[in-house]
């Protein structure tokens, strides 16, 4: 074999590896969803029992006047013994009517709502939470601690559906299904609703089965007193992802974390791509920090916890490294095309057929698990991968379709047009993130108000999250300023 042939072979093998790495997120997601049905038999209900401990609810609040009133009213109307529930609102130096709202509710429900005021706030959610936790731990009354967000609405049976899992002393924390509940729906809130069904009703069930939960929902996490004490009586303040750190630490210390799918609480979610980007950038930067902090936990099986399992590590890194995998896949495919390798087309087609199978299974299962989301978000279900990717999937399944359609219309697809389409499709694996960024960049302009929703349907929802993850790498690498950039909530939650 000549040196040139050897170089060609090596390059082909490397590029093929890149392309196969592109399949990792799809395969991991598909595997995760195949595990979900097993939750019918492998779940925590056998060890759950009616149990109503004394619960202290901590609500961190910074300028939440618009949403706190309804949230407190719903807490007071919970189907839970009145003498076993106390609410502590930690007001982080709000400058709006938050103190007045809380004090009025405290007067309406004497002895059940406490207003704690921080005069010098602005340190962030986790510091605010710690003030409330310290207050709750001051006496022995509290047996369980519920951490929630100010805008989250708790239906009557939601709390006791969580507490029943704490009847098992092995459980340290329980989390609920936080469903999107905005009254005024738009395309983005419908995408978020679908994402929450996928990521919670689907993925967290799979994590229950595998015995390792990635993250307790920030707006609905119930801890046993023992767990909070064992965690040092405080949540982490060094990262953006105090929820994830709490979740990891609980499991690393040998206590179980459980997801309860029938405890459904409602939250208001971002209506614009920019607001979504800010919220998710905070989460994604938190994930970068958590990944670094627990780098010695992943892929190291342990009898104490499931976080070191191969399956959990695969799910975690499939999402965390998804932008990298997408860029590698595009690079590999374009490289193979330029090398004139006939493998590129076959591998590309296989990749997209696997993706189609993953989408079909995951999306169908998710909307079956929450029929309300399926009814509201059917357009977003069809276009979740984006219109461009849907077209690529159709072409991958029916390779001769374009020629056939062109033949019907009397057009001729020249080799140049065909090559252009192929290169665009290869580029799209990673290029979709650029278009997701474009959707965000133009949103504030006059033309953007019309074009951004169209671009999101064209690009799909997943690439937006991938682009945010990529942005989080950049921001963390540059050690960009970190601040508590809270999502605007204006009190439009249904039910």
């Amino acid at each position, binding site marked *: 074999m000549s040196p040139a042939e050897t170089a060609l072979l090596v390059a082909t093998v490397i590029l093929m590896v890149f392309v196969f790495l592109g399949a990792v997120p799809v395969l991991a997601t598909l595997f995760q969803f195949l595990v979900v049905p*097993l939750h019918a038999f492998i779940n925590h209900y056998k060890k759950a029992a*009616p149990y109503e401990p004394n619960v202290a609810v901590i609500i961190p609040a910074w300028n939440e006047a618009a949403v706190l009133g309804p949230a407190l009213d719903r807490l007071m109307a919970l189907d839970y013994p009145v003498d076993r529930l106390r609410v502590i609102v930690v007001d982080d130096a709000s400058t709006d009517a938050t103190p007045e709202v809380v004090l009025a509710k405290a007067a309406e429900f004497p002895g059940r709502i406490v207003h704690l005021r921080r005069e010098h706030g602005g340190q962030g959610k986790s510091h605010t939470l710690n003030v409330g936790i310290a207050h709750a731990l001051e006496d022995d009354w509290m047996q369980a601690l519920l951490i929630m967000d100010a805008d989250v609405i708790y239906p009557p049976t939601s709390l*006791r559906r969580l507490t029943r899992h704490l009847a098992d002393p092995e459980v340290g924390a329980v989390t609920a299904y936080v469903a999107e509940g905005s009254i005024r729906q738009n395309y983005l809130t419908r995408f978020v609703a679908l994402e929450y069904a996928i990521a919670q009703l689907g993925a967290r069930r799979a994590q229950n089965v595998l015995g390792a939960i990635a993250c307790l929902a920030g707006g609905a996490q119930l801890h046993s007193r023992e767990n909070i004490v064992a965690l040092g009586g405080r949540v982490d303040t060094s990262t953006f992802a105090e929820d994830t750190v709490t979740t990891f630490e609980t499991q690393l210390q040998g206590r179980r974390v459980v997801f309860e*799918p*029938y405890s459904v609480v409602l939250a208001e979610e971002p209506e614009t791509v920019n607001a979504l980007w800010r919220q998710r950038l905070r989460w994604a930067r938190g994930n970068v920090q958590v990944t670094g902090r627990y780098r010695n936990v992943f892929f190291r099986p342990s009898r104490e916890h499931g976080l070191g399992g191969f399956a959990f590590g695969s799910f975690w890194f499939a999402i965390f490294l998804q932008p990298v995998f997408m860029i590698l896949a595009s690079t590999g495919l374009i490289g193979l095309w330029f090398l004139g390798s006939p493998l590129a087309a076959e591998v590309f087609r296989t990749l997209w057929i696997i993706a*189609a199978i993953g989408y*079909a*299974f995951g999306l*169908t*299962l998710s909307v079956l698990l929450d029929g309300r989301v399926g009814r509201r978000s059917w357009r977003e279900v069809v276009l979740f991968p984006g219109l461009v990717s849907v077209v690529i999937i159709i072409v991958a399944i029916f390779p001769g379709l374009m020629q056939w359609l062109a033949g019907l219309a009397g057009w001729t697809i020249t080799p140049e047009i065909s090559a252009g389409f192929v290169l665009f499709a290869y580029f799209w694996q990673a290029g979709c993130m650029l278009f997701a960024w474009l959707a965000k960049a133009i949103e504030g302009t006059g033309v953007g108000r019309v074009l951004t929703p169209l671009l999101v349907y064209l690009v799909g929802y997943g690439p937006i999250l991938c682009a945010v993850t990529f942005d989080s790498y950049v921001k963390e690498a540059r050690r960009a300023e970190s601040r508590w950039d809270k999502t605007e909530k204006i009190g439009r939650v249904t039910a």
Partner: protein
Amino acid sequence: MSQQHGERRELVQQQRELDGDRRRERIVFLLGVLSLIPVAAIILVRVVFFV
């Protein structure tokens, strides 16, 4: 006495709720099987198309 009776009734109701959720969860397996239908359709279409 009536308080004890009330608590007992409440306990029974919660146990029923738990049993109900446990039964409801068994349907998830069926939903998983149903979700294989579109997957089967994709594979079938692909195979038929190539034949």
